[in-house]
């Protein structure tokens, strides 16, 4: 079924009787060519591109709960390609370009909204670093603008320009950055994959790998054994637990990131704004809630919930930056498990097991990467060679000294 305004009108006039399931609920087949573990954004996008772009067939996505259950359904919905390093920026710009045509391509309105991402700076050193980054973005074919205080004030007059502890000196703006309705992405990819024959199997937890002679044969699941020629793992948050079943230790720690939304408010914040002198970033959803977050709690956790000090810290940051939000109320907070990698950058690579591939380590930046991650992972699975923009995301880069450390904090996962 093709979605369109016309279809919406037609269904409205005929009692919505014609709407079909967005996807099937198939039972698992005995075997597939490709099994993707993880029905989150990256797993669904991988299956979608495997089927659509790389023309592969007999694909299944195994999800232990419901589609989109993971971090695709609990994030602050930001997309941007404002990275510094050559290992990252071309990849994220590739992702941005995929975002830009995505809705028409998969015929689903994910509310991609390029209202801009503005990173504020508060010191000369920060400005220098931002200029270096902005220039890197331009050199990679992305867009960037460096604003001074007046430029920021024109865009966001409600920020504290009067008595800030750390005055706003300017900002790095990417106009093509913005937000996307996160669930819409999961559903768009799921529906698109399902329409191309991918079996999306919910409530199917992988409990083990079957590996023979160093080669993957299939996976044990809560719904029985499923054979597979190739298995791709995209289970952010559970990566450690899943890959342990294949005997792997990883350069990853699991941490909790909290995020927050206020009660609905009439529009006040145009795009995404990040504070450069505290832990706070914010946007406003189409529904009107201020969607915001800050730093991870900082300790290893699989609990999907955080603690009060970070809530206070983030609120302090918000109040310092934009004091007019004070009388808005926090409506809801949530916590997601982040695969915090040792250099803050992801891993898309083969493993020591032939036919077993890993997509992991997205820290808290995985959402914006969803299209490119899926595309590059599909490329790797289908062609056994890395996609051009993802060559740096190798597992051996740590041992070999080719880390991609945007923040420059080293092997400290909780600081990335």
């Amino acid at each position, binding site marked *: 079924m093709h979605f369109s305004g016309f279809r919406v009108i037609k269904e409205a006039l005929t009692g919505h009787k014609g709407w079909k399931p967005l996807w099937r609920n198939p039972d698992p087949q005995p075997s597939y060519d490709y099994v993707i573990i993880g029905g989150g954004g990256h797993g669904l996008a991988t299956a979608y591109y495997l089927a659509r772009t790389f023309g592969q067939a007999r694909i299944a996505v195994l999800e232990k709960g419901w589609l989109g259950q993971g971090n695709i359904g609990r994030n602050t919905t930001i997309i941007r390609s404002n990275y510094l390093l050559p290992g990252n920026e071309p990849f994220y710009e590739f992702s941005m370009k995929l975002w830009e045509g995505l809705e028409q391509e998969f015929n689903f309105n994910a509310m991609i909204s390029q209202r801009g991402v503005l990173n504020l700076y508060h010191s000369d050193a920060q400005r220098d670093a931002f200029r270096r980054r902005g220039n890197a973005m331009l050199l990679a074919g992305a867009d960037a603008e460096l604003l001074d205080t007046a430029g920021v004030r024109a865009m966001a007059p409600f920020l504290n320009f009067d008595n800030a502890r750390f005055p706003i000196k300017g900002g790095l703006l990417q106009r093509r950055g913005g937000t996307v309705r996160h669930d819409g992405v999961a559903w768009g990819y799921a529906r698109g994959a399902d329409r191309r024959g991918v079996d999306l199997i919910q409530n199917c937890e992988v409990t083990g790998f079957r590996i023979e002679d160093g080669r993957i044969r299939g996976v044990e699941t809560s719904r029985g054994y499923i054979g597979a020629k190739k298995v791709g793992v995209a289970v952010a948050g559970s990566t450690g637990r899943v890959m342990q079943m294949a005997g792997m230790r990883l350069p990853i720690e699991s941490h909790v990131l909290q995020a927050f939304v206020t009660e609905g408010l009439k529009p006040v914040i145009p795009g995404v704004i990040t504070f450069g002198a505290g832990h706070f970033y914010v946007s406003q959803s189409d529904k009107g809630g201020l969607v915001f977050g800050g730093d991870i709690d900082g300790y290893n956790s699989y609990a999907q*919930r955080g603690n009060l000090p970070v*809530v206070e810290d983030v609120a302090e940051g918000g109040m310092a930056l934009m004091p007019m939000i004070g009388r808005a109320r926090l409506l809801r907070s949530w916590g997601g498990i982040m695969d915090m990698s040792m250099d803050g950058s992801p891993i898309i690579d083969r493993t020591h097991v032939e036919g077993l591939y890993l997509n992991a380590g997205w820290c808290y930046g995985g959402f914006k990467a969803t299209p490119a991650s899926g595309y590059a992972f599909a490329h790797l699975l289908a062609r056994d060679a890395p996609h051009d923009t993802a060559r740096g995301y190798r597992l051996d880069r740590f041992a070999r000294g080719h880390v991609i*450390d945007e923040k420059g904090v080293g092997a400290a996962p909780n600081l990335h």
Partner: protein
Amino acid sequence: MTRLSGGLIDRSRSLSFTFDGRTFSGHPGDTLASALLANNVRLMGRSFKYHRPRGLIAAGSEEPNALVELRSGARLEPNTRATVAELYDGLSARSQNRIGSLSFDLLAMNDLLSPFFAAGFYYKTFMWPRAFWEKLYEPAIRRAAGLGSLSMQADPDAYDKGFLHCDLLVIGGGAAGLAAALTAARSGAQVILADEDFRLGGRLLAETHLLGDEPATEWVAGVEEELASLPNLRIMRRTTVFGAFDHGIYGAVERVADHLPEPGGKPRQTLWRITAKRAVLAAGAIERHIPFANNDRPGIMLAGAMRAFANRWAVSPAERVAIFTNNDDGHRTAIDLAAKGIEIAGVIDSRTDAKALGDYPIFAGGLVSNAKGRLGLTKIEVRQNGRSQWIDCGALGISGGWNPNLHLASHHRGRPVWDETLQSFVPAKDGPPGLIAAGAANGQGSTAAALRSGAEAAAQALAELDLKAMMPELPQAEDAVSKPQALWHVPGKGRAWVDFQNDVTVKDIKLAHQENMRPVEHLKRWTTLGMATDQGKTANVTALAVMSELTGKSIPETGTTIFRPPYTGVSLSVLGGGNTAEHFRPRRLTPTHHWAKSQGAVFVEVGPWMRAQYFPRPGETHWRETVDREVLATRKGVGICDVTTLGKVDVQGADAGEFLNRLYCNGMKTLKVGMVRYGLMLREDGIAWDDGTCARLAEDHYVVTTTTAQAGPVYRHMEFARQCLWPDMDVQLISTTDAWAQIAVAGPNARRLLERIVDEGFNISNEAFPFMACASLTICGGLRARLFRISFSGELAYEVAVPARFGHALMQRLVKTGKDLGATPYGTEALGVMRIEKGHAAGNELNGQTSPQMLGMGRMVSTKKDSIGAVMSRREGLAAETRRLVGLQPVDPAQPVVAGAHLFTEGAAQSMATDQGWISSAGYSPHIGAHIGLGFLAHGDERIGEVITAANPLDGQQVALRVVSAHFVDPDGGRLRD
């Protein structure tokens, strides 16, 4: 209509207030909601999506409809529930989320278009043409969405934070909570009793039962009196416990002054972090409604709320009301309202065997299937025995059973458990450790059961704490068990609301089912169910039940729904605790701060510190003019600069030398006593992390410095090395950053100046105290000091350290004593210029991404010893890195050099692939007479003299730069040793 009799309002006083510009009057004890009802205002809000006219459905914090903008000006508070806004004299409120008036909202056309706005419709359209989303569709949606407005002004009120500790935290001051608090307090435990309401009693305030032989309110008053007299119990009214966090920590907000016209010097609200050994969750229950067509008409509300309004606030939404129930509790409302003189049009009870419990018409086996009255209910359609009839009534109370208020019990993600008898979820057993649910929050909803379970929960908590419980005598109370019949919605044609605020109807749930959005999380996200300001308090369980009907699975099989903090909305102001504007972070001031201020210095934020940036003099019109003067004066005479902010760590012990040898990549053990050495510290991954100096004051005593930015992390790291890596070493550490004021004295006249303040007997001549010497000595007639002959500027230079309290005086003395030598204070700008001129790496070069090789210090990494980071610095990827620190100077001196520009071979195409490095630091050098820079360039060490291109496309700049040595000043170091 006039007030009913009774109620807990103070009729002797009247309070004036306005709603949408109209003036009304109420009484102390009223909420905005009860006062509006008393003034015949039933229409209080508009729904989110369809802008349907709405009235109250609840009497408490779960209210989804009656949201108002409270107060005005900078105190404007959007989305305030009228049911919890305590009335005060002069209160002003406005309805919100409307265009036009509340009774004539232009956006109500959305309601006419509702067939087009079914669940998930926006995912299916607005995709063409692509550019129209941001330009047309989305702005229109955004304007229509949202609820209330922000004032766009800073919050003028003060906020506070506090910490509390107790043995037992009792959450909720109703029957169960009071019994729990009484039990625990009498037993001698430290108890906190918190309730969101301004009056203790909870549901007891809304009922007419007797407790023992006295009215409930009198029993509450008696308990309250006793509790107030106990020193080990703290009563916190107007306090919402909003979250259960780890290890018995609960977040709570006390609304200290929200019931006053203005806080009057008090904080408006206080954020409490309560650490409780045990907690009793006695938060009561929230009644369920039963969806039927047009069940959102103003005047249709929860039966329990209707009863609360009548009994506590002496108001009724209408003179003639009907009740729709599936259990006995609904009948109580009929009885209580009838007793107050309200006409009962009938009780429609879905149970076929239902009997009237009072003098009112009963419709056993009946259902309410429709309602009329757009701006206020006028009649309901009742179906009974296959017949339907319209009954006139101005209000309808609905009772569909009660959902335990188990929110806090699921804050650790414990899943609520379905109780088939109660037809509701009850708190899971794997809730937050130490939290025990009691009373209606645990499904024990009769007054007697609530009292009993509250006392028992407290006794259990005390037993776990090894305290003996003194069980109180509990009064006789009603013990009716109200078994609801499973009735989740009334089938029919029209739209039947499940989630009122977000306009989610039974049809939307059916559509979600039809489209395979069946898992409860898909249902919520597809329809926006439970995402309104009440977070599904009045909707989620009902929706789950409707979905379970559709799937044919049981309710627990269909799913559960858990809640996340906060229980109700918490203002960002109180979470921020007032640490806003300039108070966002503490300011650290240097010992010479006030002196610098008196000299007219301009300050700059450097991490937590405020440092003097430059010292403008009269007549100087631009900061560059000042900085150039400071640089030249230093290079010509002598400059003075406070460098106290550098981290200082005192390292002592027999193994101090060996310890530092392992921390720094270069050797420190061989350093002679009385000498200083530059030290480079790597992270364990081999990347340069921090630099500073090590001064050996004695065989077993070093003083090391760190950069300002890394003072804390480096100290932490040193303690890690000492305690975790090499615990058997004899070495002790202490941070002395704050203990010593340190002042740099630099320039050709530096020694002459210092000789004037160093006490007799200490020889600081070039021979006796050469470059990189250090000593403990006395200055200014007996003041103990440390002198280091080190230089950041490239000049003959010293740093002199004195106890911090003498920093101010030393600075004054130096400037005064050195007047004839040209002594000139300089700030961080001049400091930065001079270190660039000298080619010293600073924060922009030590950015955590550069290796010792890149900094030109590769050979400093000793291979003869093990030190942190040494092994990893030799990894293939780091060894293959060719970029090196170089100096950069424009071919045309008039051209700018800009930090953040990227470097390219001249004439080469510019892309990420051809990128050869970047400019890390830049500034105007008065010494060179042009802008200069430091940067990292591929094979830079082999390209001295080459002309390259600096590209700064952000500013549209392309500048030809010559690669030069990073040492723009005194490349052979003669000045340092002079």
